[in-house]
């Protein structure tokens, strides 16, 4: 067998051969790789470790660059790992860190290998295993290897210690209890003078602090020392990041660091450090005016720089500033707006974000208008960015920014007509939402909806279907505000609605039903009122003489009153031209509806089918009677008349129930009825139904082709649509459509002037060059971004219905990740000790003394330290406890005449015991060493008091 093994070794393809073969590609890459994989599968089973390791190396290569699964080699990797040769180990560790993860079954077997290598005398073996551990550690590994990591944290070899520090992050994350063991060592390393160690440890603390900054406040003096002392930009950047987290929590700390940071800002030539300073100031120290001013100057320099990177970062910094210091943005508004037309989409998006920050109640209309014009000329992606951000800005805080809802409704309509618009769903939601919430906007909404519905070209664009469904719903629901309901019915039932998906088509039919009912009701009402000449024409002032009439009049009065937007406007029902509802027009209407819907009674889609049949059934019910009653109008029998009216009124009542916005959490508030078990296991059911097979989702609708058709048509229609802007144009379009397909239309009841020329597909002002537009923007910005007084609105803001419990998504009380939580708990326990502080008045007095008395950095640190402590007390934060890893503190405690009551002391004692119980074995001994200047020693004298 040895011979065969030797042959194998000699003729085995190395990684280099593999790569060369791949590059030559004689037989095509997939074929070549699958052949190589075959070889690897064979070779990896070899008993010869060098063959095995080469195979593993090749496999790692293919896995990492060509995405081949290597999980079959998990165990083989472990075998290679047990090799005594360093080269093999290296390959194995690389493979393991590539393919092992938390759920790898053989992960358990690696613990001992790692432990062996972690305690190896060869520092490179140690470093290999540390690097591997930093990628694959799970709870078990982290727990089992914590003692080894602890030892390595004070290794004399800098290389090893550095990597042990690096691995700690992963270990803490997976096994928070490791903090109790290792944290003190970690903090000691913070005081190290070795630049390598400092750069590693600062990185670790930066990560830790970003998760829970408050716990690391006691370490501020150390960070401060590094901030002042270090000359390494990498380190400084990380420390600045830490201070950006800590400074907002502790005003005195902010006061202390603001000077050195400004100093760096003035002095440094490294842009990365400069940017980090700026970012620290704008995010953490924005209350310090001089620092802010300096930062804004630097931001401006960035913005004016030719380097697009700096420009981008400048914009980004500005957007951080925007919430608190809008002046900084306004100072640079020209640059911001110019950036909207930058060549770089990343920069464009960032500047758009900034522009949206500048939006306020007073300028929202203007900005939106300009941006929409801009969107028309942008590429589709950015166009949708613009639309999306306008939508989200305007709808934020339950439309808090909108005063003039009529304007907003028209804006939504305009938006829908932008050719690239793909935000149909959002616009749909908002159209319906403002309809439900804002009573006063309904007439305008109906108007906007009508303009959208009436345009046959829009039906071809699948992105618009959702908007159209909202428009249809609005027109049906608030039909009483419509100026011409007949037109609406025609629009809702036009032949091109076949392009719509079934669900939306059903909404169309339902809306047509509502409109129809409304027309009939108004017609009957009108006839009744004219029939008896004693009644005045005005419905609202009509003196009711019959019960039926009374209720109808009430209804319309109610509607009219609710719809009154401005005083003086007549009730919409009354505003309808009376002669619209002539007998002929109603008959006509019924015919139109019947003709359009009767083909649908054979529809394959249940939803459409049902709605269509509903309407047809309703028409059947009343048609004859309406016709008859008119034929013998003079001698009509009262009974029949009333009967029809009753049916119609019944239908109308069904639709006239006001719909309101529904809270997101409404469902949750419905109590669970008794006997309903929601969580019952349905596995049994599945066993029964298993062989039946679930119906495919398509089974209800057979016209899956219609959608493809829709898409196809939409493409050809996109161009046509571009030209459509004005609603009168669309009316003419409808007219044109009617002319072409007159076959499908019924004769119109009123003579319409039909324009002969098809509106040209004019390109929407794209001749304007972008620069013109930018200039417009700038000009406009000068006028409108400047802070000015709120103009007194001529029209008061209408009432927006808000729900008590907030309309936003229910704020899920975010439970902190238990792991994170336990991590920060552990850190606090270790860092802040277990002693609550009382009677620190003497201390705070001390620290209030001006620091000028003391000189030298060390003293400064101490000062800072004291200040911090004092604040912790001021905070009254129960979890804020004293930090005590400093020797000078111990001295102070002896000096300061503090009195503690017995209870406090007992409390201390108990916590102390708890704490020491966490430390076990040698760790405890180490922790008690005097060099640690540990809490235990500091507290003991207190016990004796």
């Amino acid at each position, binding site marked *: 067998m040895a011979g065969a093994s030797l042959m194998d070794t000699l003729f085995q393809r190395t990684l*280099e051969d593999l*790569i060369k073969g791949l590059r030559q590609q004689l037989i095509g890459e997939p074929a070549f790789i699958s052949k190589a994989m075959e070889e690897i599968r064979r070779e990896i089973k070899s008993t010869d470790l060098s063959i095995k390791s080469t195979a593993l*190396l090749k496999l790692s*290569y293919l*896995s*990492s*660059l060509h*995405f*081949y*699964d290597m999980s079959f080699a998990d165990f083989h990797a472990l075998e290679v790992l047990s090799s005594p040769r*360093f*080269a093999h180990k*290296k*390959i194995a560790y*690389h493979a393991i860190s590539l393919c092992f*993860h*938390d759920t790898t079954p053989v992960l358990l077997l690696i613990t001992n290998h790692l432990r062996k290598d972690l305690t190896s005398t060869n520092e*490179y073996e140690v*470093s290999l295993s*540390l*690097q591997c551990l*930093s*990628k694959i550690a799970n709870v078990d590994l982290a727990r089992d290897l914590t003692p080894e990591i602890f030892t390595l944290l004070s290794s004399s070899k800098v*290389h090893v210690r*550095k*990597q042990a*520090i*690096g*691995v700690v*992050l*992963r270990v803490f994350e997976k096994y928070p209890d490791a903090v109790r063991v290792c944290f003190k060592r970690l903090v000691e390393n913070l005081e190290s003078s070795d630049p*390598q160690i400092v*750069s*590693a440890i600062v*990185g*670790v603390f*930066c*990560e830790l602090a*970003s998760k829970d900054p408050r716990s690391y406040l006691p370490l501020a003096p150390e960070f401060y020392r590094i901030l002042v002392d270090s000359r*390494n*930009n*990498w380190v400084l*950047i990380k420390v600045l*990041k830490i201070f950006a987290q800590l400074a907002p929590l502790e005003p005195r700390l902010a006061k202390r660091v603001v000077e050195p940071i400004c100093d760096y800002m003035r002095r440094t030539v490294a*842009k*990365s450090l400069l*940017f*980090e300073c700026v*970012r620290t100031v704008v995010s953490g120290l924005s209350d310090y005016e001089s620092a802010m001013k300096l930062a804004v100057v630097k931001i401006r320099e960035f913005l004016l720089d030719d380097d*697009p*990177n700096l*420009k*981008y*970062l400048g914009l980004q910094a500005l957007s951080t500033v925007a919430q608190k210091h809008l002046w900084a943005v306004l100072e640079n508004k020209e640059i911001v707006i110019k950036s909207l037309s930058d*060549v*770089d*989409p*990343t*920069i464009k*998006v960032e500047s758009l974000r900034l522009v949206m920050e500048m939006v306020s109640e007073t300028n929202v209309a203007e900005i939106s208008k300009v941006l929409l014009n801009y969107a028309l000329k942008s590429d589709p992606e950015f166009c949708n960015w613009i639309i999306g951000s306008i939508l989200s800005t305007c709808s934020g805080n339950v439309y808090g920014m909108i005063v003039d809802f009529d304007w907003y409704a028209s804006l939504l309509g305009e938006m829908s007509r932008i050719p690239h618009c793909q935000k149909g769903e959002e616009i749909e939601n908002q159209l319906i939402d403002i309809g439900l919430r804002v009573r006063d906007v309904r007439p305008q909404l109906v108007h906007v909806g009508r303009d959208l519905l009436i345009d046959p070209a829009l039906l071809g664009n699948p992105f618009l279907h959702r908007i159209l469904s909202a428009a249809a719903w609005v027109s049906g629901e608030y039909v009483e505000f419509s100026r011409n309901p007949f037109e609406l019915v025609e629009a809702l039932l036009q032949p091109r609605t076949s392009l719509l998906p079934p669900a939306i088509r059903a909404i169309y039919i339902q809306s047509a039903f509502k409109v129809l009912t409304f027309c009939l009701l108004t017609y009957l009402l009108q006839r009744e009122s004219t029939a008896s000449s004693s009644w005045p024409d005005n419905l609202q002032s009509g003196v009711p003489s019959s019960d039926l009439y009374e209720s109808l009049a009430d209804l319309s009065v109610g509607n009219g009153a609710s719809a009154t937007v401005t005083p003086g406007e007549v009730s919409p029902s009354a505003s309808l031209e009376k002669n619209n509802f002539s007998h002929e027009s109603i008959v006509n209407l019924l015919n139109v509806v019947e003709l359009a819907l009767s083909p649908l009674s054979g529809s394959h889609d249940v939803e459409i089918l049902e709605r269509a049949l509903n309407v047809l059934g309703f028409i059947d019910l009343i048609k004859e009677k309406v016709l008859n009653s008119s034929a013998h109008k003079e001698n009509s029998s009262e009974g029949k008349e009333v009967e029809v009216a009753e049916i119609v009124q019944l239908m109308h009542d069904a639709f006239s129930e006001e719909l309101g916005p529904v809270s997101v959490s409404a469902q949750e508030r419905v109590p669970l009825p008794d006997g309903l078990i929601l969580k019952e296991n349905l596995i049994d059911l599945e066993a029964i139904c298993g062989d039946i097979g679930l119906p495919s989702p398509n089974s209800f609708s057979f016209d899956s082709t219609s959608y493809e058709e829709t898409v196809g048509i939409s493409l050809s229609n996109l161009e046509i649509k571009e030209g459509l802007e004005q609603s009168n144009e669309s009316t003419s379009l409808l007219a044109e459509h009617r002319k072409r397909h007159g076959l499908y239309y019924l004769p119109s009841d009123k003579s319409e002037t039909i324009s002969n020329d098809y509106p040209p597909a004019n390109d929407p002002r794209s001749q304007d060059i972008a620069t013109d537009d930018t200039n417009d923007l700038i000009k406009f910005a000068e006028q409108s971004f400047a802070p000015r007084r709120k103009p007194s609105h001529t029209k008061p803001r209408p009432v927006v219905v808000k729900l008590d419990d907030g309309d936003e998504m229910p704020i899920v009380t975010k439970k902190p990740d238990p792991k994170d939580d336990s991590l920060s708990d552990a850190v606090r326990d270790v860092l802040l000790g277990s002693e609550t502080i009382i009677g620190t008045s003497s201390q705070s007095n001390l620290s209030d003394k001006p620091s000028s008395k003391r000189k030298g950095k060390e003293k400064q640190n101490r000062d800072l330290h004291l200040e911090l402590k004092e604040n912790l007390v001021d905070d009254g934060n129960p979890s804020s406890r004293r930090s005590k890893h400093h020797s000078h503190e111990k001295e102070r405690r002896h000096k300061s005449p503090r009195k503690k009551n017995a209870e406090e002391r007992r409390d201390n004692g108990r916590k102390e015991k708890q704490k020491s119980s966490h430390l076990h074995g040698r760790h405890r001994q180490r922790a008690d060493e005097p060099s640690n200047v540990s809490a235990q020693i500091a507290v003991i004298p207190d016990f004796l008091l």
Partner: protein
Amino acid sequence: MGIRFVLMVNKQGQTRLAQYYEWLTLEERRALEGEIVRKCLARTEQQCSFVEHRNYKIVYRRYASLFFLVGVDNDENELAILEFIHLLVETMDRHFGNVCELDIMFHLEKAHFMLEEMVMNGCIVETSKANILAPIQLMDKTS
């Protein structure tokens, strides 16, 4: 976690080195690399070196035919990451001498080794070229 991944991709969009600091399945990696490469390679020299992607940011830089792409958290200092990329290139340059795509292809494990010396758990732990290269040089000597 500051750095999420480091990728080296050539002009044709082929990955030459991939190092992730969080576990992703092969499929996720394939999708991620595809998306990123499509996004970044289409950009011109005049555009900035940062691309927002999903919930993080990609900082990239092109050296000759090779793109270096680093995925970072949003609060990472972008300029520092650019410097990090440059440091990585300089380090490889010092070791290979005028580093090119082929060097990385044929010495992938060395490139990985350098990267591992520089970054642990997504944190940059070492920034001195001499320190990064010391173990590799020692290994070259002994083998």
